[in-house]
């Protein structure tokens, strides 16, 4: 298979697209409309290809991806569940797809109704009543919530609360977001069970504590059994509890962050409510907060007046906005469809099944690999390849690469950092026992395979293992025309 770039297919003068003839007077020279100093002599040097070139190129490219529609994709922390086809069809309806973001409210009542309901759903699921749909991704949701917290403390005259506490097992975006919101980060070590160490937490809480960011279930797939004590401690210290909602898929309809003491949380709508992941985006990261934080939320939000809906900008203490326009509506739309399709019982059954699947896979995987933390897990778990490394010098990454040969996507590897040779697996609720068994069987097979075979895997893909060091040392980030 060739790896020609589209630029290398270009031939001068070849083209695909054609524009309509100009139906307004076109006889005046351009420079009489726009002064020459603004005009380029030539258009940008884009590739010149025909429509068939384009289609063949990108169609063939697509076949070099693994994806949900062709493979089991147990990528921990990413909640790679099935993306229903009905969502794609409905999102393409012109009545949704062709709405301009600045249309007046009276021309987008159906869209506003949907978004209003989505606000209500997310509030209900989290137990936190005020929602902003604006953040474009989970990380932006985190940041938005921390900006809300900063504004709240500023408003309360508590600008000395400059510290954000983050467990060592947290997603890397947590400390990064804290940083960008102007806080200082303090790392809180986990205990041997992989949970927050209460003593350590107590030691680090203080008058300077602004926010404790907690992922629950955490990135090891464990529910923080002492969550109530944790949130009480933070509140007692005058801080706010932020819940990283990446793992909401485990607890829908089972327990609510608002009920266990979180003051703020974000959602990853693309994960929990199955927006397709798009090769890395778009996502959608709305946040839900307690009433006392509502005035600080970004504007606008959708409000209901009787039977009509409107966008409201009128929060006096709003932090402003974290992006242009309303939000990643297309992903919110798909999340809405998922919630409406599942209903209350279905959402709960999702989480129950995600947890059952994870525990079953955990049981199967532990036939071959260490699973350092005691179960039951929630919707995901972390195995360790440390014995394989010790005994046969095979790394967790080698196992991952070999899985690709068997037609499975790899688990998340080397995260969380607290587990050596981590293999983090999240099967989600949309997989069957047969699929989990097939995957576990392959893992067992791989464990017994020749070490060299594993270290040189994969063997069946369009390329073999790339030289990542070279990529970083001599970065080539764009194609250039040969001279």
């Amino acid at each position: 298979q060739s790896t020609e770039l589209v630029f290398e297919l270009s031939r001068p003068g070849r083209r695909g697209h054609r524009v309509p003839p100009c139906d307004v007077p076109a006889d005046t020279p351009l420079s009489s409309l726009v002064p020459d100093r603004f005009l380029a002599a030539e258009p940008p040097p884009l590739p010149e290809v025909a429509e068939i070139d384009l289609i063949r190129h990108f169609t063939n490219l697509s076949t070099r991806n693994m994806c949900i529609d062709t493979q089991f994709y147990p990528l921990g922390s990413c909640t790679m569940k099935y993306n229903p086809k009905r969502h794609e069809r409905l999102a393409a309806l012109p009545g949704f797809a062709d709405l301009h973001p600045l249309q007046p409210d009276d021309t987008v009542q159906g869209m506003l109704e949907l978004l209003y309901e989505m606000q209500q759903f997310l509030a209900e699921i989290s137990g936190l009543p005020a929602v902003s749909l604006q953040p474009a991704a989970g990380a932006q949701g985190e940041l938005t919530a921390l900006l809300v917290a900063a504004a709240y403390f500023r408003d309360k005259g508590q600008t000395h609360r400059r510290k954000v506490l983050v467990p060592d097992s947290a997603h890397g975006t947590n400390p990064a977001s804290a940083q960008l919101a102007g806080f200082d980060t303090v790392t809180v070590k986990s205990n041997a069970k992989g949970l927050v160490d209460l003593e350590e937490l107590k030691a680090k809480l203080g008058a300077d504590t602004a926010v404790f960011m907690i992922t629950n279930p955490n990135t090891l797939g464990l529910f923080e059994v002492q969550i109530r004590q944790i949130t009480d401690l933070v509140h007692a210290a005058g801080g706010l509890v932020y819940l990283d909602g990446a793992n909401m898929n485990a607890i829908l309809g089972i327990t609510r962050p608002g009920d266990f003491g979180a003051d703020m949380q974000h959602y990853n709508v693309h994960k929990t409510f199955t927006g397709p992941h798009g090769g890395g985006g778009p996502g959608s990261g709305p946040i839900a907060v307690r009433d006392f934080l509502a005035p600080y939320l970004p504007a606008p939000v959708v409000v209901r007046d009787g039977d009509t809906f409107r966008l409201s900008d009128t929060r006096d203490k709003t932090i402003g906005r974290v992006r242009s326009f309303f939000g990643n509506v297309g992903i919110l739309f798909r999340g809405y469809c998922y919630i409406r399709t599942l209903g209350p019982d279905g959402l709960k059954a999702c989480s129950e099944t995600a947890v059952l699947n994870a525990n079953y896979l955990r049981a199967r995987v532990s036939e071959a690999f260490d699973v350092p933390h005691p179960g039951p897990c929630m919707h995901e778990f972390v195995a360790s390849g440390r014995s394989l490394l010790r005994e046969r010098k095979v790394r967790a990454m080698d196992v991952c690469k070999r899985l690709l040969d068997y037609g499975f996507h790899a688990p998340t590897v080397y995260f969380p950092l607290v587990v050596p040779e981590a293999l983090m697996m999240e099967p989600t609720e949309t997989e069957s026992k047969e699929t989990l068994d097939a995957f576990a069987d392959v893992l067992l097979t791989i464990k017994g395979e020749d070490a060299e075979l594993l270290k040189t895997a994969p063997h069946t893909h369009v390329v073999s293992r790339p030289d990542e060091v070279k990529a970083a040392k001599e970065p080539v980030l764009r194609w250039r025309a040969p001279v």
Partner: protein
Amino acid sequence: MPYLLNTDADRAAMLAKIGATSVDDLFAPIPAELRLTRPLDIPAALCEQDLTAHMQRLAAKNRPAGELVCFLGGGAYDHFVPAVVDAVAGRSEFYTAYTPYQAEASQGTLQAVFEYQTLMCQLTGLEVANASLYEAGSAVAEAVLMALGVTGRTGEVLVAGSVHPQYVQTLRTLTENLPCRVRVLPTPHGFLDPDDVAKAVTDSTVCVILQSPNVFGCLEESAAVGAAAKKGGAVFVSVFDPVSVGLLRRPGDDGADIAVAEGQGLGVPLGFGGPYLGILACRGDTEYLRKIPGRLVGQTTDRNGKRCWVLTLQTREQHIRREKATSNICTNQGLLALRAAVHLTALGPTGLRETAELCLRKAHYAAAELAKVGGVRLAFDRPFVKEFTVRLAADVPAVLAGLRESGFLAGLPLGDWYPDLPDAVAVAVTEKRTKAEIDALAAALREQLAKTA
């Protein structure tokens, strides 16, 4: 249950293997007092047919572009999207894959993003582009974070008053707690005077942000503003329009250090504002490369020496740097970057130029026709390409509401953003608008103004 596969027999076998007696056992770590003891208060499940009917009902309550003739712009434009864009983006190998962590099994996404990065370099005349950001507003803020890092300065961020107000708002929000101050430089004549920049720039100025064409549709004196910024050692951030650049000088040609754009016009549906595409490109200097936010795809070779692509320079990213990260962006808008890549490939240089020229000629025709209507005048005496601002001698909301009745989204009232321009309306004209539609708008506007006069 929809989407759930396990049968009762499966569940029993799985529980047995786990060593649990019920699914509820698995939730034992969640203290009973924290459990939700009632069903969630959300509507009951809908099957596909009923969901479809429900969504069609909601859709019918909207009046999309196509039903209303769209002259709305303000950062989102009703450009034509060739069918090939939907065809490619509709390949499930692209849209149901995730971040290409396993390069060998993700060459499709990786190569497409590498092509996107190259296309953005070609479009901007700059050396490096990232794998995309959320949209233009936060991309402007990311550019400022870069400028903070590159310059090491902590002074003013100067922004032209003619930059899209939502971008400015976003910038203010996102830099609120960071060591810099946003100052807006007034643009009373619809553009930023380079002399004002020269006066405002000091040796602590972080950057100067200019958008051209700006929110009024006017072209800015980018080269001169850029020169003034750089003279003071500030970073020049240029916000451009990726369609108009088919005709206009590119940001890099005018000295931009960082170029930012809203990529929606490149094959992304209007979609009520998102997901969109934040374009960010910059110079190739090492300090820029170190600070560029978001993902980057790089070229390398595999074990057999075959060319291939990987995510690279990830040490810049949060999951490695954590609290030392200079951006918290950890994804890109992959599917939108793909759409933009396909769109630009479909258009090619000639198609992009011709599209830009059609927009320009139609916009100029529209401006001339609207200006003939009594009570309408052009707000600024500045060059423009696809959008322009008029001022109406009438109550703007009433006129626009009347035009809506006649089937037009006639333009964007600017009064909410610019209290000193309560009578101003920005009118955008893309290649999709026909002479007949423009003439009809002028006629309807004449009628409205006669009515309200």
